[in-house]
């Protein structure tokens, strides 16, 4: 993070005001320097002030800091009374009062009453202090509130940081074809071979069924034809070795079952087949 001196932000001003600085609110042209102690404030000014609180914790922190107190030294009774007066004011002004403000009022009242009760002597640790949880929440909220202020002070785009750019050249629109690596090709080949192996296994396994299927289709063709059909018509090279074997087995089986007749005029002459008469 580089130099951020000299930059005055709205939050800087706000922070100054919270930490006992000068400006509390600006109403119209008038600068309100301090919250009057008698609680008489011009109503519109008070509205502005009260509306700047981000919730009960923010208001409490304001009250504590206004007395220059450390959170750890909170006089609960005192703060509770002040808090209640602000709450009354806010409701009197019909500000939309978030339920959280009232919940906090109840919490404060409870802590106050517990502090008034006599405490056992050995109950001196932090656990026993009814303020502990409230203080923890106040500290936690204050840290985040401060973090938000620092965040707001960071140099940022649109306000302090200006990215540098230049006019791009005329673009050459190229649509590069997909790239392929040799190993991808190898993998693809491995897959093909692997699948081919699987197919072979399956073919063997289902051979019997293939023969039955082939017999059915052959028979249908033979029956539909009114003439002798040459045997080689049933062997298609596209089917490969398996197909040819299946066809051959089918012919033998059909013949054995007497479903077809095989005819050969002389040795080595073409074989024909037809439906059994």
């Amino acid at each position, binding site marked *: 993070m580089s130099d951020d001196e000299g930059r005055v932000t709205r939050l800087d001003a706000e922070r100054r005001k919270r930490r006992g600085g000068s400006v509390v609110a600006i109403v119209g042209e008038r600068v309100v320097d301090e919250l009057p102690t008698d609680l008489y404030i011009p109503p519109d000014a008070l509205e502005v002030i009260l509306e700047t609180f981000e919730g009960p*914790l923010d208001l409490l922190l304001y009250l504590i800091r206004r007395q220059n107190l*450390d959170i750890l030294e909170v006089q609960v009774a005192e703060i509770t009374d002040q808090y209640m007066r602000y709450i009354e004011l806010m409701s009197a002004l019909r500000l939309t009062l978030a339920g959280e403000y009232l919940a906090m009022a109840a919490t404060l009242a409870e802590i106050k009453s517990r502090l008034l009760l006599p405490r056992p002597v050995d109950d001196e*640790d932090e656990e026993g202090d009814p303020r502990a949880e409230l203080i923890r929440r106040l500290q*936690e909220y204050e840290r*985040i509130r401060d973090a*938000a202020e620092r*965040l707001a002070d960071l140099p940022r785009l649109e306000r302090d940081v*200006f990215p540098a750019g230049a006019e791009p050249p005329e673009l050459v629109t190229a649509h590069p074809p997909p790239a392929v690596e040799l190993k991808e090709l190898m993998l693809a080949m491995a897959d093909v071979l692997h699948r081919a192996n699987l197919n072979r296994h399956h073919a063997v396994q289902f051979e019997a069924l293939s023969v039955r299927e082939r017999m059915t289709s052959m028979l249908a063709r033979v029956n539909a034809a009114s003439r002798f059909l040459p045997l080689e018509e049933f062997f298609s090279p596209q089917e490969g070795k398996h197909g040819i074997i299946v066809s051959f087995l089918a012919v033998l089986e059909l013949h054995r079952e007497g479903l077809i007749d095989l005819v050969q005029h002389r040795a080595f002459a073409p074989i024909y087949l037809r439906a059994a008469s």
Partner: protein
Amino acid sequence: MLQQAEIRRVLEAALLASPEPVSIQRMLRLFGPGELPEANPRQAVKSALAEIEFDLEGHGYRLRQVASGYRFQVRQELSPWISRLWEEKPPRYSRALLETLALIAYRQPVTRGDIEQVRGVSVSPNIMRTLLERGWIRSVGHREVPGRPALYGTTNTFLDYFDLANLEELPPLAEIHALITPAEDDDGENDAAPMAEEIHDTFETELEEDAESGLENVVPLPTVDR
């Protein structure tokens, strides 16, 4: 293979032509096969960037690394002149929005409920919408409790916007004084503050150092109740 000077020219041109920061990864993809030294292309790009940075000494702009990559940006000290280029005022953000954003940045991942717990008031849906629309926060998952509330975290766009390279560059969170030990220094300023443990790896080390140096009053951060 391209000359070092050539690589520099390409990189500075790319940084200026790109509307957003350019990552090293993207710079590497600008070059065709064989244009960068094959042994260590990343090193070639990095040393070209170092040269570019060095050469801009004395110029009105500089090379800066933010979360999503590198960009050229105007030197901070020239901002007073440069902001005169724009008539419109930069956008302002409400305290409620900044507090919500700070909580998400420092305590991520958090739910809306976590934020409400710390701030003591409910978070307006508008704020969450604005933060999401600006791309500063995103939902990073859900907490496995009834209702499965969304968990939010910040984005690189957030870091880029605030000129940060990573979350460690966020200003440190204030120190917390324990209730039992009265604070020695209570002027309300939180100067020598250690980093929040969630965002800083060295927190534990620093704690140890603190213990050695007798700074007993550093207590662990209160965790956001779940």
